[in-house]
C-alpha cells in the first residue's frame, strides 16, 4: 500500500516510517510539514494519507480540508495526534477520517490502520 506520512517531528517521522515499512510492508512517502504533504498528495496518488494533527505551515486538519475541497475525497485519511481533547477528536471524525492517539504502539499501528480502514469499508489492498 502506498502511504503518505506527514509528520513534523523528525524522530516520530522516522519511527513511524520504519513501523509502516518494516512491520506493515507499506511504501511510505514522508512529508515534514502540511504544505509539503498537500503538494505530495495532489501530485501523487496514495492509498492512505496519515497526517499529524499539529504541524507547522498547515495543520493536519487544514490539509485534510484543503484536499477535500480540491476533490481528493477517495483517499482515506488517518490522523495521528498527541492531543486527545474530545473536541479535536470530534473534528477529525467529522471529516470522515480515522484517529490514532500518540503515543501509539508501533507493533499495533499497522493493525489499527487496517482496522480503521475496515471500519470505513475501505479494506486495505
Amino acid at each position: 500500500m502506498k502511504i503518505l506520512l506527514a509528520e513534523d517531528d523528525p524522530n516520530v517521522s522516522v519511527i513511524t516510517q520504519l513501523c509502516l515499512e518494516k512491520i506493515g510492508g507499506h511504501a511510505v512517502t514522508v512529508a515534514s510539514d502540511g504544505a509539503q504533504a498537500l503538494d505530495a498528495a495532489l501530485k501523487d496518488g496514495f492509498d492512505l494519507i496519515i497526517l499529524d494533527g499539529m504541524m507547522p505551515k498547515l495543520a493536519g486538519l487544514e490539509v485534510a480540508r484543503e484536499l477535500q475541497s480540491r476533490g481528493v475525497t477517495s483517499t482515506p485519511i488517518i490522523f495521528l495526534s498527541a492531543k486527545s481533547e474530545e473536541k479535536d477528536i470530534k473534528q477529525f471524525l467529522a471529516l470522515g477520517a480515522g484517529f490514532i492517539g500518540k503515543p501509539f504502539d508501533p507493533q499495533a499501528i499497522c493493525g489499527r490502520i487496517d482496522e480503521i480502514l475496515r471500519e470505513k469499508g475501505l479494506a486495505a489492498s
Partner: protein
Amino acid sequence: MSSIRARLAMIVLLVVTGMAWFGQASIRTYEDYDRAQGQIGDVLELRAQVLFLDATSYSPKLAGRLKEKRKELGRDPRANLLSDIIQAYNEKDPKALRRRVLAFVDSERRTLNDALLRQREAERKLKQNAAVTALLPLVGLFMLWLTVRASVFRGIDRLSRRMMDFLVDRYSFQFSEPESNELGQLQRTFNSLAQRVINNMDELKSLDQAKSDFLSITSHELRTPMTSIKGSLSLLTSGVMGRLEPQAEKLLKIAESETDRLIRLINDLLDLAKIEAGKLPLKGDWVNWDEMMHKTAQSLVGLANAAKVRIAVQPRPGLEVYMDRDRMQQILTNLVSNSIKFSPEDGTVSVFASKTRNGEMLVQVQDQGIGIAPEDQELIFQKFRQSSSPESPIVKGTGLGLTIARALVEEHGGTIGVHSEKGKGATFYFTLPKWRDQTGHSPDADDVPAERGRGAA
C-alpha cells in the same frame, strides 16, 4: 434637598414647628376665654348684689362692699352708674335706687353680651386650633410615607432589580448612574463590588484558560517524545530490526515496560486533571452490559494470561446501563486490572452485576488476593496511595487507577468502595443509578431513576 435623611428631617421639623405654633396660639386663645369667663362672672356677681339692694333695710356692710367695687372699676363708665346707686342707697331712696339699678342692669347687659361673644369666639378658635394640632401629625405622617415611598422603597426596588440583573447575567450588566442620596451611595458601593466580581471572574476565566492550555500543551509535549521512545524500543524488541543479544534485549524490554508505565501515568494524570477541572463531559448512552464486559475482558486477556489469572464475567442478558462507553471501560479496566495485579496465580477475578435494595445497579469485582487491611481501604482511592501489601511484578500501577475510577463513577452519579478482609480477597464495587432490563422481566423496572438522574447527562 437630595439626601433622604434631610428630607425626612425637614418634614419632622415642619410638623414640630407647626404644632408648637398652634399650641402657643391655643394657650393665647384659652387666656382670652378665661378672661371673658372671669368678666362674665364678675358682671353676674355685681348684678346680683345690686339687684338685691333694699333701701328699707340699709346695711353699712353692704354699702362698704359696693364702695370697694366702685374703686375696683376705676374709670369704667359703669363706675358712675354704681356711684349713683351707692348714693341712692345711702340716701335710702327706694324710687331712685330702683331706677338707677334698672339703668345699671341695662348697661351691664351690653357688657355681658360683649363678654359672652368674646367667650364664644375664643371657644371656636380653641376648637379650630385643637383640630389643626391633631391633624398636623397625620399630615406629617402622610408626607413621610410619600417621601419614604418615593425615595426609599422605589430606590430599593430599582437597586434590587439591578442586583438581580447582575445575578442573572453578569456580562450584560450595565452600571447605572447612581442617585445623589443615600441609596445612590449604596448603588455606588454595589457598582464597585460588581466591578470587582466581574474583574475576578475575568481573571478566573483566564486562569482556567491558562490551565486548559497548560494541559493541552503538556499532553502534546509529553506525548511526542514518548512516541519516539516507545516506537524505537518497540521496533528494537520486536526483532524486525534484526536479532539482539539476549541481555540487550532484556534491557530493552525493561526500558519498554517502564516506558509503557510512564505513558499510562501521563494519560492518567491528564485524565484526572481533566476530570477535576470538569473538562471531561460524559457522553451518556444506553449500553448493553454484556457487550461492555466482553470488550473489557477481551482487552485484559493479555494481562490476565501473563498473571495466570482467569477473568469470570457473570452474564446479564438484556441488561442495559446508561453510561459513557469509553469512561465505563476505563472504570472497569482499572478495577479488573487492579484485581488481576493482586490475584494469586491460578486465581479468578469475578465480575457480577446485581440490583441494590434502593434500585441501583451494583457492579462487583472480586479477587482472591491477600485482601486489603481496613485502614488502607479508604487510602487506596487517594492519589498515589497504594496498599502496603507487596505488589505483583507483572504490571506496575500508576497509583491513579482507583482515584480515576472513583472520579468517573461519581461523574456517573454512583458511589464506589471496597469490601475486604485481610487474607480473604477484596471485592471492589460501584453503583450506577440508571439501568433497564430489556427482557421486561425486571420486577424493579419502575425503580429505574428517570432520565434526568444526576451524573451522566
